[in-house]
């Protein structure tokens, strides 16, 4: 359906698992699309030690979420939050039409919202 890179990750996500000892858990749902994603985050307060996800969504939101979890490990929370939307979208492995931007943005938007008050459950 999409490029091999995207489809490979969709079928073999590397971060699609539940985490028990998370520090932050973020529930994100796009009611209109039916996407439902949970992010589990382990952090030392400043940096991401690990991030995993569970849920359902379209291929783009799933792949974007899996990539996001993987790429965030070791990074600063504030740095992740502050990256701009455009460069986030451009770093996605396939070119996205404007109608699909929300799908790719899903994990970053969830992360921003969920880390506004650290420690939030």
């Amino acid at each position, binding site marked *: *359906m*999409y490029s091999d890179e995207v489809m490979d990750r*969709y*079928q*073999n*996500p590397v971060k*699609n*698992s*539940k985490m028990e000892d998370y520090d932050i858990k973020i529930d994100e749902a796009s009611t*209109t*699309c*039916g*996407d439902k994603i949970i992010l589990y985050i382990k952090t030392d307060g400043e940096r991401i030690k690990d991030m995993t996800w*569970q849920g359902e*969504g*379209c*291929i*783009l939101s799933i792949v974007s979420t899996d990539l996001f979890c993987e790429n965030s490990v070791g990074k600063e929370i504030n740095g992740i939050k502050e990256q701009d939307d455009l460069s986030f979208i451009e770093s996605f492995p396939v070119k996205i*039409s404007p*109608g*699909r931007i929300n*799908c790719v943005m899903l994990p970053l938007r969830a992360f921003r919202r969920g880390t506004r008050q650290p420690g939030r459950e």
Partner: protein
Amino acid sequence: MINTYGNKDDFPIFNKRVNGKRIIYLDSTATTQKPRQVLDAIIGYYEGSNANVHRSVYKLADEATEVYERSRKNIGDFIGSRENEIVFTRNTTESLNLLSYTVGESLKKGDRILITSMEHHSNILPWMRLEERGVILDYVGLDEMGHLDLEDLKSKLKRETRIVSVAHQSNVLGTINPIEEIGKIAKDNGSIFIVDAAQSVPHMPFRIREEYDFVAFSGHKMLGPMGIGVLYGKYNLLEEMPPFNRGGEMIKDVDFHNAIFEDPPIKFEAGTPNVEGAVGLSAAVDYLKNIGMEEVRRHERYLTSITLKSLDGMKNVKYYGPRDPDERGGVIAFNVKDTTNLKKDLEGRNIKVDRLYHSHDIATFLDDRNVYVRSGHHCAEPLMRTLNITGTARASFYVYNGDDDVEAFISSLSEI
């Protein structure tokens, strides 16, 4: 006049090339493309007779008034109504909201409104608004093939049911509902019967019948311009109703604290009307009359039947609504099963799950091949809940589509 079908020559947009290739437009249920004749009518109006209408005495204003009222008559004739029963609105949504804010205002706590589980949000939300005042909204259920369950309708039709409002044709399932029969049942019950004809007036022969109190449809879904819609209403009902929006044009007399309103339909057309829209829609009606609505229906039935036949042969495609093309219009909602997918289950084991691709992924895949289908909930979330899905892809046809479009659609779909 078989040559008008699937003939794109009249529609300038099909000269457009995307990545060097033609576009396969399969979203006419959302909005239709416009023939040259409609665009010419719009420009002709602005270049020849543009002015504000009514109550003016100079020639240009006379001309504008005349083309406006002649358009009203032409559209009235098209559905077999008198011209003074045709109210111009923005679209189907506004037509139905007008009813909610006028007829609906007379409903009291405990009164009921009956709609169906296959309605478009435009025929749900205006009625849901009245729940705030204690009105009860009931939904007629569907059978497995996506037909209305008429027994359920009869059992939900109560003495308190003041309004019955039903889509003539579903914009998702394609189901054509037996509105003559439902209308009779509603009228026997003393209820006001409203037809959401957004998907039927554009696609099949449609005549106003005694059972129909109000009928709503949109110009942009039948080759006309955006920004113009129609509300047909029985004259005596329009006369009894209070006005909706208020302002210029729709009054006979105003003093500081009182107003006498104009007669219908002007009573419901506050402010400067969209003359351009009326003229454009009238030109669209002429275009459709020239083909003949029986032929429009026959052509769409044909495209639908060959498409369904192809889809029947595709193991991974699931479509919704009646199987028999006689029972449905030219709109096909479908999903594609993701047969290759492996998923970790909650315990972390790799299992094969029989899930559907997300409809947006299908639409994006087809978009890459210049095949334009809609995806999502199609403004029918209660129906999606009823079908227990979050969305579908949807292909729909109109007069300019032909075998070529069906072939491109099917061959692209088979590449998923």
